[in-house]
């Protein structure tokens, strides 16, 4: 059913820390790896070794540059996957009922046996979080690793989305946003987590933790080598010390 639940019991989602992400794309690869062999049809590639390889991915990392006047430019790596919106426009436009939002945990999923591959849901998503699989002709999207997080056949520490599990920087956090005491809720509160494109009215569950303004080394007259050199200067003796002192006299 493509009517959205009025409320979901849990609001599972991700808090993505833009201050910490180093742009290594590990989450992109582990997402592809897990999801090509689990929920639904494989994530196909077309011409993977040809001149123009294309393929479906559920998570992609963009890189932006931000520049304030009189300050050096700052690089922000920006991972993006489905935000499991509360008011998900991708669900309501679906003509077949293949797209739905789960009442129990708020995860937005596609039932691939019903999907006709019309692509309308991908048009309706402002974030580019859905990609049509060119080989199977059905819509693919982030499942929040629904087949990991409840999976009792895998060790407990693996029961979180593959992207979260693989992030070497710890930039991705998984949890329940409906619970104000959860780690993701607290993080979001402390760090002033934000919604992407709030004006689109989608009420995304995933939150982005904004990066700090980087230090401006030039303006703060900050010399990385200074402390080391000072240390070095003190230890100078003998001939070099004599040269140093003599030269200073001129």
């Amino acid at each position, binding site marked *: *059913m*493509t*009517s959205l639940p009025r409320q979901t019991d849990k609001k599972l989602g991700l808090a993505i820390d833009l201050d910490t992400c180093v742009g290594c794309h590990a989450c*992109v690869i582990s997402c592809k790896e897990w999801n090509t062999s689990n929920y639904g049809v494989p994530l196909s590639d077309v011409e993977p070794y040809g001149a*123009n390889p*294309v*393929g*479906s*991915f559920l998570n*992609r990392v*963009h*890189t*932006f540059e*931000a*520049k*304030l006047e009189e300050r050096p430019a*700052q*690089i*922000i790596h*920006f991972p993006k996957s489905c935000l499991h919106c509360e008011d998900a*426009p991708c*669900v*309501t*436009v*679906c*003509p*077949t*009922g*293949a797209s739905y939002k789960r009442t129990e945990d708020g995860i937005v999923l596609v039932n691939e046996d*019903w*999907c*006709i*591959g*019309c*692509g*309308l849901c*991908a*048009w*309706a*998503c*402002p*974030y*580019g979080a859905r*990609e*049509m*699989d060119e080989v*199977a*002709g*059905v819509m693919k999207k982030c499942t929040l690793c629904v087949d990991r997080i409840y999976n009792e056949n895998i060790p407990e520490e693996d029961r979180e989305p593959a992207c979260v599990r693989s992030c070497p920087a710890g930039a991705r956090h998984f949890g329940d946003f409906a619970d104000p005491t959860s780690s993701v809720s607290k993080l979001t509160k402390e760090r002033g987590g*934000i919604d*992407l*494109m*709030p*004006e*689109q*009215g989608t009420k995304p569950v995933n939150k*982005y933790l*904004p*990066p700090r*303004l980087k230090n401006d080394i030039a303006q703060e007259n900050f010399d990385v080598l200074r402390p080391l050199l000072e240390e070095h200067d003190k230890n100078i003796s003998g001939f070099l010390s004599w040269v140093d002192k003599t030269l200073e006299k001129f």
Partner: protein
Amino acid sequence: MHPAPSIIIFTVFSGLGFGLMAYLGFDTDPLRGWNVLPYYLIAFSLSIGGLLSSLFHLGNPQRAWRALSQWRTSWLSREGVLAIVTLALNFLFGLSLFFSLDYSKNLGFVSGIFAIITVFSTAMIYAQMKTVPRWNNSGVPILFILCSLAGGAIIMGDFKLGLIGVILSTLIQLLVWVRGDKALKNSSTNISTSTGLKNLGKLRLLESPHTGENYLMKEMVFVIARKHVFKLRILSLCFLGVIPVIFLILSLSVGFLIGLAMISYFFGLLISRWLFFAEAEHVVSFYYGRG
């Protein structure tokens, strides 16, 4: 957005077919018997042909029947249901005219109304998209409906309604372009809201997530022909407005020229519908350094 031929054919053909049905339904002094048959044949071929063409856009057309189930929330689903109801109503009404039965004017009226609502729902598939500010505009359904009614009137050889329809639809098309050109700017979405990084200063995409293309870029970040937009708009205005008006007026003395008016209007519609898709900017473009 990517201007897929199947979708352009779907919206233009089915629009014309339903426009013709609307004309036939509202006609106060309808044709009967064999005279009405060709018109219904044209109307059904256009509308059914258009609907079938839309199936070519699907990844799994064999399940298309499922698309009739979600009419409560989905305009695409509503369009499917309404199209079927409209076809059925018009089939009944057409039969009653063909057999010159004691036909019911009310049935004709209802068939016509349903034809118009179907075109409206086709337009709403696009006009509902908040993510495409150029489409998210009340002018879009008006334009779709006017074009289909004008087309129906010209096919019927109705000089007066044809002329009014051509002029009105061309004017509304102009208005939709003018409004559309400001839509993305006027929408509050931009690279700052899409990344939430506005306090860090001026933003630009430094590296895209991958070196090649992807589905999103091919489908929604379509920019190939934007540089020809102006020329195509002029062409579209000529074929949609100027040439049909000339032929319609000439047809008062040389009757068959109304056929040329129809052909021209049809090409005008194809160009304008191509532009409707090709020009439309999706807000996801902000994540790909275009917008």
